[in-house]
């Protein structure tokens, strides 16, 4: 059953862009001051409408399948391996949905690997309750390649976070396929910051952080990112990002890990609860 769910999610994620992002692109096409930027945004909206209507992958880069599981601690799994069920679902959905095999088995390229390597990265959180929540994302690598992580120190503080976000977006420029979603992860250890940034980039863009100071920081960062001039597809303009989402976690008294994960305008995610 999990296998079938995953197969369905990967196809739907690749054919249908989330409502919040599509609406933000429609709004941006009105708000954008640059003419070439507006035209670009209008084309993106059209691409998403056609992909949904004709059931086509919105982008040829169907990305790496990222599966975030929130597993209730009272859940008892029966029959077989959880990981195999997810891998099987990804394989089935990739084939049935005419999605591209975008994953290589050996990142060093020292092995000769055929196509069809199992394309899934799985993160699991244990939570109270008896439900399983799945957040599925197809993460394209144009934006993933432009993401960054840096270990700051406490004295660097919020100004360092701000500068690092702006610098990462500026260096990414057109390569990350703007307008982008900016996910910022602050705290924990090296890997926590990266995972928080991934969770941030996958949070719906119309949901702000519940902490008022972080909500304000998200707004300030979005405004400053949109003053960089990059614009849609880096052709110049005001709409460089659709949202800046921040997630935080406690960290060591000696540290301030900051990760910035970028999502392209086609940030494909879908959630369901089993």
């Amino acid at each position, binding site marked *: 059953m999990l296998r079938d769910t995953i197969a369905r999610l990967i196809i739907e994620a690749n054919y249908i862009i989330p409502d919040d992002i599509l609406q933000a692109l429609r709004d941006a096409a009105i708000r954008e001051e640059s003419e070439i930027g507006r035209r670009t945004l209008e084309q993106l909206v059209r*691409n998403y409408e056609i992909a949904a209507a004709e059931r086509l*992958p919105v982008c040829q880069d169907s990305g790496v399948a990222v599966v975030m599981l929130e597993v209730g601690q009272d859940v008892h799994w029966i029959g077989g391996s959880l990981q195999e069920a997810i891998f099987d679902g990804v394989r089935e959905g990739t084939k049935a949905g005419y999605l591209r*095999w975008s994953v290589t088995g050996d990142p060093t390229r020292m092995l000769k690997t055929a196509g069809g390597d199992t394309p899934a990265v799985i993160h699991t959180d244990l939570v109270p309750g008896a439900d399983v929540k799945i957040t599925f994302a197809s993460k394209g690598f144009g934006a993933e390649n432009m993401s960054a992580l840096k270990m700051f120190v406490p004295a660097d503080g919020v100004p360092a976070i701000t500068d690092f976000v702006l610098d990462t977006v500026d260096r990414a420029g*057109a390569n990350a396929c703007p307008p982008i979603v900016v996910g910022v992860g602050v705290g924990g250890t090296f890997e926590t910051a990266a995972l928080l940034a991934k969770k941030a980039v996958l949070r719906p863009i119309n949901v702000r952080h519940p902490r008022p100071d972080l909500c304000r920081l998200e707004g300030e960062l979005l405004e400053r990112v949109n003053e960089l001039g990059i614009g849609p597809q880096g052709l110049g303009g005001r709409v460089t990002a659709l949202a800046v989402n921040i997630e935080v976690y406690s960290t060591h008294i000696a540290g301030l890990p900051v990760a910035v994960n970028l999502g392209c305008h086609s940030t494909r995610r879908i959630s369901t609860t089993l």
Partner: protein
Amino acid sequence: MTRSDMSVMQLTFNDGVTDADLDRLRAGDSVELTGRVISFRDATAARLTRALEAGSPVPVSLHDQILYAVGPSPPKPSQIIGSAGPTTTARMARFLPTLFAAGVRAVIGKGELHGDDMNAFVTHRAVYFAAIGGLGALLAKQIRAADIVGYDDLGPEALYSLEIDAFPVVVIIDTEGRNFHELSRARWRSLPRRRTEREGR
């Protein structure tokens, strides 16, 4: 080459693109391309370059050709090609000097090229066109034929000959060495924002 309206130019090429056509393009021009182009990606570019540097034959002539950075999705039964938008050109930039020397005259891709990557274009008076990244479903409709002409073991990275028709691109680097990404970012960064509307959330 003709201008069909105020803003979009048409560029048709049959047996390769001419210098005269490329010289007329200016950074920032919107152009619709019609003709045959050759696909390339990370693995394709590396293999082509290795063959050229070793003096070995390559599957297809690159003389006066345009390369398109793309690795398409598999086609559905009713399709010529699956989703087929551009991929990031910068990843293949290190191979471009060799490919230009073999006759390539222009590249379609997405993303930015600066410094040495851009200088390779300037040296060879080549043109860099950007297509819109993430426009895969729509751009597939501007492809009339897709034939694998080599390296089919590379799967989505195989060498395709693609017949494109009114394929929309923007000139990023022109033969005079102007870079539209750099020019427009600088312009919009210094231009005061319209005061009527601040960034909404």
